[in-house]
Structure formats: structure tokens, C-alpha cells
């Protein structure tokens, strides 16, 4: 016996007379052996019978609304035809273009390839765009130079302090280095730091 879940989909088609004629006799022979499907067909036919009756009672004979033609032409005269908006015109053009591309596949592929080559030739290589600096664009060049200068002063100061520690008692080189840093740091807070360091070195050497 065929499995019902495969046949189940055919119940609706059978009841609505839409089942492929080549499948009808198979389905009907299935009905002789399957109570579930038979019950379903019966139930659906019963539903359709009563709905048909109710709908037939609602509209027993097809009718047309009176004076439809006259009303239509009156309305057509009253309502001027809509002018297509620029957007709808654009959409129409694009749709038509798309339809042409869909129908003329080879031509559309050639046109697309040609467009890519043209872009590559006239504009630049579209597959290898120029890499751009993606850093913070709000920082100006001057600010960045100043930032680098501070970093340079800090490095120099680090060197002085490291060397001061290594030299231990020899203050002369340290003083000269600190003076260079002080000159380098002119206009920044590093000047004060350098001055403090110089003071401290001199005090130590006096001791």
C-alpha cells in the first residue's frame, strides 16, 4: 500500500479535479485500500458540497453591476490619466533594460565585460583600488609633527636618565645631554622636567 503522506497532497488535487489524469486511476485504487485518504476525500467533498450550496444561494446566477460601462467612461472622463513620475520612468527604463539583458544573455554578458574594461581603462584598475590612509583624518599634519616631536624628546630624556644611572658619578656628560634635551624641548613642558633633572644632577655633584 502506498504511504499516505505521499498521497495526501494528491487528495486536494483529486477533490478539485486537478489531479493529473495519469494518476487518477492509481489514486482511486489507493482509496480502495486506505481508509484515511477515503475519509479525507469524503470530508473535503462534503465541505465543498455545502460551501457550493451556500455560495450558490448567495449568487444564484452571475450578474453584472448595472450601467458599469457608463460609470466607467464617466470616471475615465473625470480622472485625468496619471503622468508618470520621474522615479517611475526611471524604474520603467531599468525594468526594460533588465528585460533586454534577461532575454539577450550573450549580448548582455558582452556589454557587461565591455563596461568593466572601459571602467578599468578610463578610471583605473577597479580590482586594485589605490590604498588610502584610514587613520584619524581629523588630526592635522602640524599636530602629528608636534606629536612626533614630543615622542623624540621623551626618547632623548629616557636615554639621559638611563645613561645618568649608568654613569653614576660622572655628571658632566649628563648635564650636557640634559642641556641638549632642554634646547630640543623648547616650548614644551619637557623643559621644566629637564631643568628639574639638571638641578638634581648639580646638587648631587656638589655633595
Amino acid at each position: 500500500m502506498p504511504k499516505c503522506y505521499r498521497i495526501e497532497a494528491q487528495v486536494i488535487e483529486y477533490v478539485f479535479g486537478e489531479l493529473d489524469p495519469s494518476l487518477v486511476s492509481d489514486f482511486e485504487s489507493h482509496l480502495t485500500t486506505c481508509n484515511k485518504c477515503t475519509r479525507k476525500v469524503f470530508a473535503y467533498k462534503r465541505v465543498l458540497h455545502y460551501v457550493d450550496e451556500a455560495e450558490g444561494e448567495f449568487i444564484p446566477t452571475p450578474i453584472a453591476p448595472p450601467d458599469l460601462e457608463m460609470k466607467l467612461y464617466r470616471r475615465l472622463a473625470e480622472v485625468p490619466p496619471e503622468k508618470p513620475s520621474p522615479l517611475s520612468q526611471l524604474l520603467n527604463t531599468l525594468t526594460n533594460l533588465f528585460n533586454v539583458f534577461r532575454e539577450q544573455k550573450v549580448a548582455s554578458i558582452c556589454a557587461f565585460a565591455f563596461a568593466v574594461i572601459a571602467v578599468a581603462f578610463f578610471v583605473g584598475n577597479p580590482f586594485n583600488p589605490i590604498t588610502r590612509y584610514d587613520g584619524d583624518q581629523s588630526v592635522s599634519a602640524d599636530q602629528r609633527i608636534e606629536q612626533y616631536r614630543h615622542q623624540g624628546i621623551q626618547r632623548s630624556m629616557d636615554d639621559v636618565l638611563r645613561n645618568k644611572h649608568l654613569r653614576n658619578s660622572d655628571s658632566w656628560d649628563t648635564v650636557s645631554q640634559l642641556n641638549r634635551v632642554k634646547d630640543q624641548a623648547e616650548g614644551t613642558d619637557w623643559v621644566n622636567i629637564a631643568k628639574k633633572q639638571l638641578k638634581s644632577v648639580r646638587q648631587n655633584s656638589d655633595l
Partner: protein
Amino acid sequence: MDKLIDDEMLVAQFKSGSQKAFDELMKRYERRIFGYLLRSVRNYEDAEELTLEVFFKAYRALNSWEPKAKFSTWLYTIASNLSIDYHRSKARKPVYMFEDEEVIETKLVATDISSNPEKNLEDKERGRMIREAVDELSSKQKAVFMLTRYEGLQIKEVAKTLGMAEGTVKIHLHRAMKKLQTLLRPLWENNEI
């Protein structure tokens, strides 16, 4: 006009300036479209207005219409969309007004003098309950059911009309039948039908 002329030929004639071609198309389909919309909205005046709207839209769009599907399918598409919009805008269950049905019946039904008035009333009530059950279907289920059952459209035509896959139409039809079966079961369990 020759009835053997197919719809597409009439459309072509209309496009070349023949108003009579459109009149003929309207004559061919006004009953069917009105019947479909009347079943869909259950209100005579609204169905009349929507039918007018269908032909109005068809008239205005016919010049740019390309016969990719049958003309009737296109008309049913317009009608279905309008009907769905109608239900959406109403966002309520169709109200059965006795006057509505009376209006329809006075226009449609020939009086059967020999019939039993009591039985008639019972039948009327039962019919109303069944139609209410049909109106419980979702707008898509109802459209699929109506187009398949009462407009004589095949499943593939319904699919084109409603812009669905055939499988989706079958699913809607299946769900519609199951729902109707569930909703109507109390009626035959109580031996009312």
C-alpha cells in the same frame, strides 16, 4: 462583435484605438469579476465599486500590458489585489447585513412561491453560517479557494494570478479546506447539515 475573437486580439484592437474592443472585453468579464469580488467582500455596493475600479485600472494600463499571461488572469490579478487591499483597509470581518443579502436577493433570486418559508429561513441561516466560515479564511486562502472553485481557474493560473508558486497555492488550498472542515464540523455533528 465576433465572440470567436480571442481576448488578446481584442486587446490589440484596443491598442490600435478601438473603444468597442474594450467594451467587448468588459462584457465578457464584468459578470465574473463582479461575482468574484462580491464573494470576496460580501457587500454589493463595495463589490460594484471594486469592479468599476478593476476595469478602470485595466483601461488605463492596457496600452502597456504585455500578454505574458491570459487577459483574464491579469484581470483577476487586479481584482485580487484590490480585494486584499479592501480587506486590509477594512481590517475587520465582513459584516453580514441582512439588507445586503436582501438587496442581492431581490436582484438575483426568482421567488419560489411553492417553497416552504420556514425551511427557506433555516437554509438561509445555514448558508450564512457557511459563508461566515469561508470568510474566516485568510485573504490568500480565500482568494485561492474562490479562484479555484468558483472562477474555474486551474492551480497554475491561480499561481500566476496571485504571484505565487504552484506549491504555495496547493498549500493555501489545503489549509483552506482543513480550516473549513474544522469550522463546519459542528454543523454536521449537530445534524444541522
